């Protein structure tokens, strides 16, 4: 039996761009280039390594996002994933994590899976909770925030470096895993990979295909409301001093003035 791996990847605005909110207080996707969330590259990488170790495996990448999110799927396919699923629907605009997890759960179930791999957090919303919620919805073990992951004989094991301890975890498949940026550098797509990705299948699904009611998702169906978003006032320009031999002392003077010493 082939090991069916599904990797959840998100298309996000470039963090080094000038990100801001649109008039409806959702993420403005117009002015900033989008890309495959860097933290999801680690998920794709671990999927590829797990597939390499398995006798027979198939990797499907899934995204929920606007039309441009295909770029994220292409990137994952060019890294080596086999096929892609794109959930795209105008009704999805403004969906929050509760809605997104519902859509992803349905898409993952429809695709069929033994192992779902997510990134540790998206680089835009950065909640870091979707993998746990997805496991809750799918009713399978949550094995999240792994810095090391291994799949062997229907069991997933991994190391989770938590707030106060490092834990060794184990669960049976099917399971939902998320991996951190400590799990190992993601590979660059090769030229061959990029060419091959163009021919790999990308299935498009909408809300109807997933039998999801429009009022469960989107801005109107959202479970949270953003009432206002304000740009943080630029920090008032600080004092910048060139060290002429007394820099440490000057800094101490400043800290004493601020009552830190």
């Amino acid at each position, binding site marked *: 039996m082939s090991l069916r791996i599904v990797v959840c990847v998100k298309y996000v605005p470039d963090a080094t761009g000038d990100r801001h909110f649109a008039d409806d207080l959702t993420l403005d996707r117009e002015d900033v280039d989008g890309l495959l969330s860097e933290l999801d590259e680690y998920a794709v990488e671990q999927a590829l390594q797990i597939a390499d170790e398995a006798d027979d495996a198939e990797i499907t990448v899934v995204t929920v996002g606007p039309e441009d999110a295909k770029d994220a799927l292409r990137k994952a396919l060019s890294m080596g994933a086999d096929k892609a699923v794109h959930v795209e629907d105008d009704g999805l605009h403004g969906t929050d994590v509760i809605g997104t997890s519902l859509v992803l759960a349905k898409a993952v179930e429809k695709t069929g899976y033994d192992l779902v791999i997510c990134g540790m957090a998206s680089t835009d919303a950065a909640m870091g*909770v979707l993998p746990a919620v997805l496991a*809750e919805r799918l009713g399978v073990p949550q*094995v999240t925030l792994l810095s090391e992951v291994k799949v062997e004989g229907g069991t997933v094991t991994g190391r989770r470096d938590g707030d106060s301890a490092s834990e*060794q975890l184990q669960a049976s498949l099917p399971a939902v895993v998320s991996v951190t940026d400590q799990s190992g550098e993601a590979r660059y797509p090769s030229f061959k990979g990029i060419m091959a990705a163009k021919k790999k299948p990308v299935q498009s699904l909408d809300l109807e295909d997933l039998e999801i009611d429009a009022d469960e998702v989107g801005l109107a169906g959202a479970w949270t409301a953003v009432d206002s978003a304000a740009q943080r006032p630029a920090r008032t320009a600080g004092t910048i*001093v060139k*060290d002429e*031999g007394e820099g440490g002392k000057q800094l101490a003077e400043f800290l004493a003035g601020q009552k830190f010493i």
Partner: protein
Amino acid sequence: MAEVLVYVDHVDGAVRKPTLELLTLARRIGEPVAVALGSGAAGTAGVLAEHGAVRVLTAEAPEFADYLVVPKVDALQAAFDAVSPAAVLVPSSAEGKEIAARLAVRIGSGIITDAVDLEAGELGPVATQSAFAASFTTKSRVSRGIPVITVKPNSAPVEPAPAAGAVETLAVSFSAQATGTKVLSRTPRESTGRPELTEAAIVVSGGRGVNGAENFGLIEALADSLGAAVGASRAAVDAGWYPHSNQVGQTGKSVSPQLYIASGISGAIQHRAGMQTSKTIVAINKDAEAPIFDLVDYGIVGDLFQVVPQLTEEVNSRKG
């Protein structure tokens, strides 16, 4: 008055500071009812009562330590059902967020994570969050269901507010999912004797400019002179100079201390994401063009190998 459920983060009965901050925020919305789980849970009651908990619901079972996250969700849900609170507040640790989010789905509610402030509002609690590496501040609410909100450390002062704090045992029946992920072993992080990074009033961080594990002694000496926690940039962590548990930034810890001192750190967006909300920011960097200087209240353009030891010595001598 409505009750507000507060999830207690504790280690063997020792309550961590962010939970006491949560009690301060909870009192703005209603009467805090604390939920403490796992070994030592009952031992938390004293300090929770001193800070406003009217009741403390406790449950001790081996499942909380032996399996990941889900047993705690089951217990928090049992508390939710028993109390029918107006809101649920959870500390924003990695685990806290996962527990909160799973509870939200179960009770049919929305969730807000990483709030930095919380006020009562006409339509329910209003949470302040920072977005896009703290370049924006948003106000949001949970619009469906009972609000579940996780709050970052250092978001509110710890205030004494004596209350009854009556201890009650919480009956929990574990779900089929509870034993899904086994914790095979747990290695507690070694204590350095320094304050916890996310809770510290002062954080002293070093980056690639520190140029070697052996030189982190300079950063530690400065930290110790100020009673501070030590942080590191990802470049320093990736180079193996300092443990990952001390990384500050998007994929490390998010800190919001009174004072943040960055030495040999350029100030990349991913680093800023984890420290930009610090009250006072100081940087030492030999490159006057480094983006970190855009954030600082006070910056020294200079060699950290000169400036940091001089600063440490000066701090120590001023302390007498």
